[in-house]
Every structure is written in structure tokens, then in C-alpha cells.
């Protein structure tokens, strides 16, 4: 019996092993597959990367029949502005990428006032990313993990744990069938008490090649009252002057 035969067999198998290894290396990890398919469902990563600005107009309603008009604008890099119109007043909450500020006449604040950095973090710094934090998440310093699957009222969903660069941990639920993010659980401090805000996203519609939810419903986990946003209009790449986002001097 040739004693080299087993070794030769191993050597013969090496190219096959190499191919398998290469294939394994090339195959996306489960988390990458879920994220990539979710971005594809939103219109594709290239279109998202090409997104410069966005304006969403709609209404927000809360318990007691309270209803207000909202206009949300986001622009690269990291600029955000929200106009909130209620009972004859329009308040503005904005961030130019570094400084947050607000003017809120209904709260008796008639002069634009800079907000402390912790207010930006509490308000959701991730909201200022026009393409969404899942696009190029590694380069942005976020960590995304696939932590399981859960049965939601609308169907089964992948559960993603997203640790944002600033340390905030949130959970996004990607519908297995449609690959849209249908729910997000985000920690917040409300009246000095840590709570989890659960937001469900629905009524997904194509707007200029990108898909957006047009109904967002948020409630504190285990509480019934909800704030409901209905988006009536989405504008892709509107011209938005940087000055709109800057603290007026």
C-alpha cells in the first residue's frame, strides 16, 4: 500500500476546499443578506446613496383628537428640520449637522434657542441620516447584528439589533416576506423614566423609485396610546438651502 496515498488524496482535495472556502467567504453573512435585501426593497443601495435630500409632509394625530401638520426635511450631511403646526402656531426643531436648535411659540419660546448635545441624542440623531443608518453601516461606525426572528401581527420578521455609533441600541424588524422595516424599538427617556418607543411602519409606497412608509404609529411599550403620522407627500431631492437648518443669528 502506498503510504503517500492519503496525503495525495488530501492534496487533490485542496482545490475543491479552496473553492468552497472562497464561496463561503464570498457569500454574505446572514445579517448582510437581511440588510442588503431590506435596502433593495427600499429601492436599492445606489438610489439611496444618491439621495441628497428629502421633504415629507403630513399630519400627526395623538390622543384626545389632537392633530397637527408636520413637514420633515433631511439633507446631507446630517441636516434635519421639522416644522410642527398646531393651533395657529408653527414650531421649528432643526439641526445643521452639528448644532441643534428650536423655536417653539406655543411653549412661549419665540427666539431660536440652541439645544444641548444630549437633546440631539435623545431626539434621535439617527433621524438625521437621509439614506438611513443601515446604508454602509460599517463605514458609519454602527454595529448591526441579526438576533433572531419574531412573529409580529403582520407576519414573521427578522430582528436586527443596531448599536449606533453613539452607543444607542435599537431594534429593527425586517418583514421576512417584503423585506421592509415594519417595526422599530427605540429607547428614550420620557419624563425622567426610561421607556421603549415602539414604532410600526405601514402603507409602503413608491416615491420616485424609493419606497417609504406613509403611516408611522408610535406608542410607549405596554401602553395603548399612540401617536400616528400620516405622510401625504414625499419629495425626493428638493432644493433645500443650508440656511434652513442653521441656527439664525
Amino acid at each position: 500500500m502506498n503510504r503517500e496515498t492519503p496525503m495525495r488524496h488530501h492534496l487533490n482535495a485542496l482545490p475543491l476546499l479552496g473553492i468552497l472556502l472562497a464561496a463561503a467567504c464570498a457569500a454574505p453573512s446572514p445579517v448582510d443578506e437581511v440588510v442588503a435585501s431590506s435596502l433593495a426593497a427600499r429601492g436599492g443601495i445606489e438610489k439611496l446613496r444618491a439621495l441628497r435630500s428629502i421633504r415629507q409632509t403630513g399630519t400627526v394625530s395623538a390622543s384626545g383628537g389632537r392633530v397637527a401638520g408636520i413637514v420633515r426635511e433631511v439633507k446631507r450631511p446630517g441636516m434635519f428640520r421639522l416644522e410642527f403646526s398646531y393651533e395657529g402656531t408653527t414650531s421649528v426643531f432643526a439641526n445643521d449637522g452639528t448644532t441643534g436648535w428650536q423655536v417653539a411659540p406655543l411653549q412661549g419660546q419665540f427666539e431660536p434657542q440652541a439645544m444641548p448635545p444630549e437633546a440631539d441624542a435623545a431626539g434621535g440623531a439617527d433621524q438625521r441620516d437621509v439614506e438611513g443608518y443601515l446604508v454602509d453601516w460599517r463605514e458609519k461606525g454602527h454595529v448591526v447584528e441579526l438576533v433572531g426572528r419574531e412573529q409580529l401581527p403582520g407576519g414573521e420578521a427578522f430582528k436586527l439589533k443596531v448599536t449606533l455609533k453613539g452607543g444607542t441600541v435599537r431594534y429593527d424588524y425586517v418583514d421576512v416576506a417584503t423585506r421592509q422595516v415594519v417595526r422599530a424599538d427605540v429607547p428614550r427617556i420620557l419624563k425622567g423614566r426610561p421607556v421603549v418607543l415602539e414604532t410600526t411602519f405601514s402603507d409602503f409606497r413608491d416615491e420616485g423609485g424609493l419606497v417609504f412608509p406613509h403611516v408611522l404609529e408610535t406608542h410607549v411599550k405596554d401602553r395603548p396610546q399612540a401617536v400616528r403620522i400620516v405622510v401625504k407627500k414625499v419629495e425626493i431631492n428638493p432644493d433645500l438651502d443650508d440656511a434652513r437648518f442653521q441656527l439664525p443669528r
Partner: protein
Amino acid sequence: MVIALAAAPLFADVVHLKGGGRITGEIVEQTAESVTVNIGGGNLSVGASSVVRIEKSTSPVQEFRTRAASIPPGDAEAWRELGDWAASGGQATLAGEAYSQVVAILPNDPEANRALGRVQYNGAWVTEAEAYRAQGFVEFEGEWMTPTERQSILRDREAREAADQKAWEAQMQAEAAEKREREAQEEADRRAFMTGGLPQYGDPIPWGYGPASWPVQPFSQ
């Protein structure tokens, strides 16, 4: 409707603030220092220095009344559109009026019911309070929650108050002990002075101005 049209002002004043904030209503007073605007639910006074400009605009109430008067009976979609228009301008009361008309025509319309603050429970649209109470929630400081959460909040609050009370008591005790110690020391010093005679070399003299310690006695050298 004629009375409402007559009562509604034809125009509204839009007071523009720095940064894009706005107040829409009727200016009831304007001086060099401030502008006071009736926004429907009350008056808002803003310092003149915060105002960028004031312009006249069509009154949203007037426009609402005009549009409402032209809606044919039974046209739920027209009322919905008017409700959306009022809501987008932040005119919650007017929006509520329009959505109420939608519900009067289509009692189970989800959008209008939700906009009026109603929720669906057992297939019917009811007030939030009715639905939440029926589900076992309790209202606590304006929020509906489970009795367990309310208990948890109260427990946390009690624990925090107890901790604050304990810390306050500890501080009071520490201050009292310090005071007792100081008084005891003063009493001991007084007794020592009275019974032991003159202070020794190096003793501090509690006398305000003067030497910091008892002077050397030159005669004993």
C-alpha cells in the same frame, strides 16, 4: 353657516419669527415692544425683537367656512380633504369639525375616527377612555398604562423619596454631631482654661487680632 361666515374674520395675521416659527391669528394689540395675537384658543404675546415680519393672509377659519359651504351633502371625501387641509395647517379644531362630518356620513371610517381620537375596540369605534378602561388600563398623570406599570412608577418614586429623606436625615445627623463635637470641644477648652490656668506655649489664642500662639515667656529662659 351664514352666521359663522359673518363671524369669521376675512383675513389672518401671520407673525413670522426668526428661524421660521410662525403665529397665525388676529393681532389684538401691537406696540413698539410687543405683538399680541389671538390664535383662537387664547392670546400669545411676543416681543417685537423676535418678529421678522407680519403679513396679512386669508383667514384659515374664513377659508374653511367658505369651502365647507360648498361641499354637497353626503360628500365624505370632500370633508376628509377639508379635514386634512385644516390639520396640515395645524387647525385642530377645524379639522375635528370636518372629520366629524366624515364620521357622520361614514361611521366606521378608520382615518376620520382616529383623527377624532377614537380607537377600535371589539369592532366598534369608541373613545380612548372607554377602550383602554375596558382593556384594564388605568389613567395615571395623563397617560394610560397597565396597573403594574403605575405601581412600578409609584414604587420608584417612593423609593426615590425615601432615599432623599434618608440622605437628608443623614446630613442633619452629621451636622448635629459636628455641632455637638464643636460645642464639647469649646466646653472642654473653657474648662481647661478655667481649671488648668494659663495656656501653654504653642496654644492658639482664640482672640481674633493678635498673636497666633502664646508668646514665649522670656523670663523663664
